[in-house]
């Protein structure tokens, strides 16, 4: 059976230089599509992947990733904005790795594009009035 899932990889700083994703292809026959990556050498990195392949290979691949010290988060959750709580400050704009937030130029309101959100959760704690909510 083939599966295709979206996952978020959190790389610890010592891992960001290593070719882990390539090994998913080579060793486990998986295919991937990088939806978003923000990694720079020597720092914590974040990558959102769409990973596809045979279920058993997929499981092995994920196991391999976990063993390398990468933290994996699945995207079966959802992040929504509580509109009554959002003050439209904008603190989230530069935090979100997928640019899900943008400024409406005229009113300077902060727009949230739910479709762009990959549920990495970074904005949730960075939002001062805690308007971004994770649903599990």
């Amino acid at each position: 059976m083939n599966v295709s899932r979206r996952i978020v990889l959190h790389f610890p700083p010592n891992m960001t230089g290593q070719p882990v994703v390539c090994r998913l292809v080579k060793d486990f026959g998986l295919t991937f599509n990088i939806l978003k990556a923000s990694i720079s050498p020597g720092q914590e990195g974040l990558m959102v992947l769409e990973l596809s392949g045979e279920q058993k290979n997929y499981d092995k691949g994920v196991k391999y990733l976990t063993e390398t010290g990468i933290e994996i988060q699945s995207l079966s959750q959802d992040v929504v904005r509580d509109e009554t709580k959002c003050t439209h400050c904008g603190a989230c704009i530069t935090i979100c790795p997928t640019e899900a937030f943008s400024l409406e130029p005229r009113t300077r309101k902060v727009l949230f594009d739910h479709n762009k959100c990959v549920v990495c959760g970074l904005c949730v704690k960075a939002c001062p009035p805690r308007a971004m909510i994770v649903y599990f």
Partner: protein
Amino acid sequence: MAKTIAEINEKIRKGKAVVVTAEEVIDIAKEKGVRKAAEEIDVVTTGTFGPMCSSGAFLNIGHSKPRIKLGGGKVYLNDIPVYTGIAAVDIFIGVNALPDDDPRNKFYPGEFNYGGGHVIQELIAGKDIILTATAYGTDCYPRKKLETLINIKDINEAILFDVRNAYQNYNVAVNLSDKVRYTYMGVLKPNLGNANYCSAGQLSPLLNDPYYKTIGVGTKLFLGGGIGYVAWHGTQHNPTALRGDNGVPRRGAGTLAVIGDLKQMKPEWLVGTSMLGYGCTLTVGIGVPIPILSEEILRYTIVSDADILAPIVDYSEAYPQREPDIVGEVSYAELKSGNIKVQGKDVPTASLSSYPKAVEIANILKKWIENGEFLLTEPVAPLPGVESGITSKPLKERPIVG
């Protein structure tokens, strides 16, 4: 053409005052010229809505039977410790206060989900708050323990008192190090990953009255959705800060201490706020009306984002170590474009104070004045100006001997 506050109030009473926001006045003056605009406009309203850490509230909860002297004892509101250094049933809750068992930054970065600011917001929202207290007991105040719900509608007084609000200009925070920094200016990404600012710029109260010619002690204002007053100049008031040719400070300068009746205020304008890795605070809405007494006063209010410069400060090293160096200067127009250049790098910007909410506040105040519900006050004393020579001093540490 000079007008007086009394004349403007007469027009407000008759519903004839011409009121515009500090944003609208910019285009009006461009179109009509400063002289004509100054003749026609009576009041310019300003607004700001940002985290203001020096806020807190005095509450008088009324006397229990038998009586308890909370002064010198220990009191908690929803597990948040409050100040009990005054009298029997007056307490002060500060917005930075945290539950005793909050892990703080032990698990770095601390989340700071609930603190004094959140209690204040819930109190105004009309929610019951749990008060627990222990006291030492005296002959006239025998009780030693108290556990009760309190509600804002039942307690005697609830007074918001903020000793430093509405900063006239502020730093733009960046991070030059290679590690994320969690600050009161938000999460700062490494290697100039972002730049956070916190001022409403052209709408901000003191940037529209740079020399404090109309705003003084006693000035009536919009505070947290209700009415408040300037109580004093704010702490760290620094009128002698570097200024541009237009008189506008290019560094953090003047501040206001404000006071008002918490019972009139609204939870949407006093918002409990959590700064990741830093602490809890309160986001406060303030709007100050500026009476257009002369052409000169109007000229100050037409300041636009392009004319206001702010210093860019490194919060990984210069700020914590109190080094005076700045990384550069940038205008609010550039900041609001979403991107600035710092050390040759494109840096995305974000704000901690809400511009749309500042606009809303300026418009609410405008409506109040237009409807004749809000009259202006004559300041009873001026704020210390440039001529006062006052500067905000750093702490000089001295060894304790003996």
